[in-house]
């Protein structure tokens, strides 16, 4: 197990190294440099002012030096300085992380609570009207932009209950019930979308397992249908589902980018969009790297989970 973790961490580190090159390269694809973009709206720019900013951003040095400098910065945990706020990036990002984590966790809970039971029902009632209805329901979730769904939920609340959800962030210490309601809405919008994939995998994986002999044996010895499905079949069908939940996490972060903006929640994802719109490139670069690290760690975590869920999976062989 230990060697396996070490191996996976090694591969993860290599992937991150590759990603750093991709991210660094992507932000330098644009014709002209960051300073051009920064000044594009300003009209005439004093050449000496320009040179000063290029120097401050380190753009006067060769690209390779810039890259090495950036990696060194990240390795020491320094996320750089926000160009717009004139503050160390970490100080801005730190209070935003709990918001995003809470939203991601809630969305994941919604998607699992919705996806797994619906997948089971769909599999058990295979090819009935209910199965078709549930599949269309999940496909509909996959087809709606979660940010639009969020807007429609808000509109619905206003139209039917005459209640407008809080437009600004409510801290849990301020008003816990309101805070939870405020987070439940985007979690529902994002979770519904993610539940579609979980439901599909649960359905197909369960259908496969239910053809196995030991399911027939369990039935034959007189176990009730419910026990057979929830105890015997689901337990063995859950592994692919866990994989998808892991993949889903990366999707979730993508979905949050827009959802946090729609619901005006001060999270990392909304800040990324703001930084992009403000052309705060040093921050964009570091935030994307930060997201990449989170995604890789969550993938690693899912792999570790296999060992606990399925004793047949042995590491280090």
């Amino acid at each position: 197990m230990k060697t396996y973790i070490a191996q996976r961490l090694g591969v993860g580190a290599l992937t991150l190294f590759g990603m750093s090159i991709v991210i660094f390269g992507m932000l330098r694809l644009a014709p002209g440099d960051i300073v051009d973009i920064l000044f594009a709206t300003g009209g005439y720019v004093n050449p000496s002012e320009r040179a000063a900013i290029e120097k401050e951003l380190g753009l006067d040095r060769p690209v390779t030096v810039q890259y090495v400098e950036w990696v060194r910065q990240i390795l020491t945990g320094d996320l750089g300085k926000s160009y717009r706020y004139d503050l160390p990036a970490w100080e801005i990002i730190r209070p935003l992380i709990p918001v995003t984590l809470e939203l991601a966790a809630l969305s994941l809970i919604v998607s699992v609570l919705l996806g797994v039971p619906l997948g089971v029902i769909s599999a058990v009632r295979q090819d009935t009207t209910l199965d078709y209805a549930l599949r269309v329901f999940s496909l509909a979730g996959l087809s709606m932009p979660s940010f639009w769904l969020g807007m429609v939920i808000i509109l619905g609340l206003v139209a039917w209950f005459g209640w407008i959800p809080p437009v600004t962030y409510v801290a849990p210490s301020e008003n816990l019930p309101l805070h939870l309601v405020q987070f439940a809405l985007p979690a529902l919008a994002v979770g519904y979308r993610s539940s579609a994939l979980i439901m599909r995998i649960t359905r197909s994986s369960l259908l496969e397992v239910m053809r196995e002999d030991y399911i027939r044996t369990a039935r034959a010895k007189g176990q009730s249908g419910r026990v057979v499905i929830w105890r015997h079949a689901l337990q063995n069908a859950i592994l692919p589902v866990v994989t998808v939940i892991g993949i889903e996490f990366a999707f979730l972060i993508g979905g949050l980018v827009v959802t946090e903006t729609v619901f005006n929640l001060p999270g990392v994802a909304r800040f990324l969009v703001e930084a992009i719109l403000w052309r705060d490139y040093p921050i964009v670069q570091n935030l994307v790297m930060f997201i990449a690290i989170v995604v890789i760690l969550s993938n690693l975590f899912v792999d570790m989970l296999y060992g606990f869920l399925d004793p047949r999976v042995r590491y280090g062989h």
Partner: protein
Amino acid sequence: MATRPLGVEVPGVAMALRRPGPWTTLVRFCRKKPLGAIGGAIMVFMVVTGVFANQLATHDPIATDATQSLARPGPEHWLGSDHLGRDIYSRIVHGARVSLIVGIASTLLGSVLGGLIGLLSGYTGGRTDLITQRVMDILQGLPLLVLALVMSASLGPSIPNVVVAISIPIIPRAARVIRSSVLSIREMQYVEAARAVGLRHLRIAFRHVLPNTVGPFIVLCTAQLGSAILVEAALSFLGLGVPEPYPSWGRMLSVSAAEYAQKAPWLVLFPGLAISLAVFGSNLLGDALRDTLDPRLRGA
């Protein structure tokens, strides 16, 4: 240009089965996969709307009219008008053109590039394959939307740039699908025969292996089309996608719509419905095509 990829899809089914005529095949497909047929019908409807946008629109989609600001849906404006008095119905009809062109072009670009990478990587094997796969891992490690977001921000807003930005995250997904089918085709006897005859590798790869990946390729494209349309909507919504003055479904939902949403819910409802319908159609069709064309996934 917007009609072509969809025109190919249905004959594509015919090509894979070969024997019965295309019409019989189409009827059989509709009977066996009613949901897929509905999806196909939705997509044909969308494409027709995009192609005949000029004829179908009742107003100029970008003409503003202060007197018609936030008009309710009615005989004059079927789906209402926005805060600048632009007709929502006409904008949605023209938006179909923009969103489908961007969606289809980026899907094709990403799938073709990814497919070529997958073909060469899978056919060559060995170290090239290993390195290519690691690079694809890296590209796939970032959330699709985040990657497209950064790309489009760095390239600047224009329609070709948005197409490129959306196609990049599709490349690794396409490469993986095509590679896995190339790996099995590579071991087929007719490929061995071609090698024994002394054909050059490039010729074998492109003439004998590539045509047999058409099935998975079509499945891949329909599956990715939905997410490409969604990413375009999200990018445009954030103001980083299709620029003004082109009406795009995503941008119709952006900040201004959210501001007036309480007073004029039609600003939010209809463009979102258009996006959902298009993606729903391509998802339905993609699922049915996958069941029909990709035997490995049959029954899943």
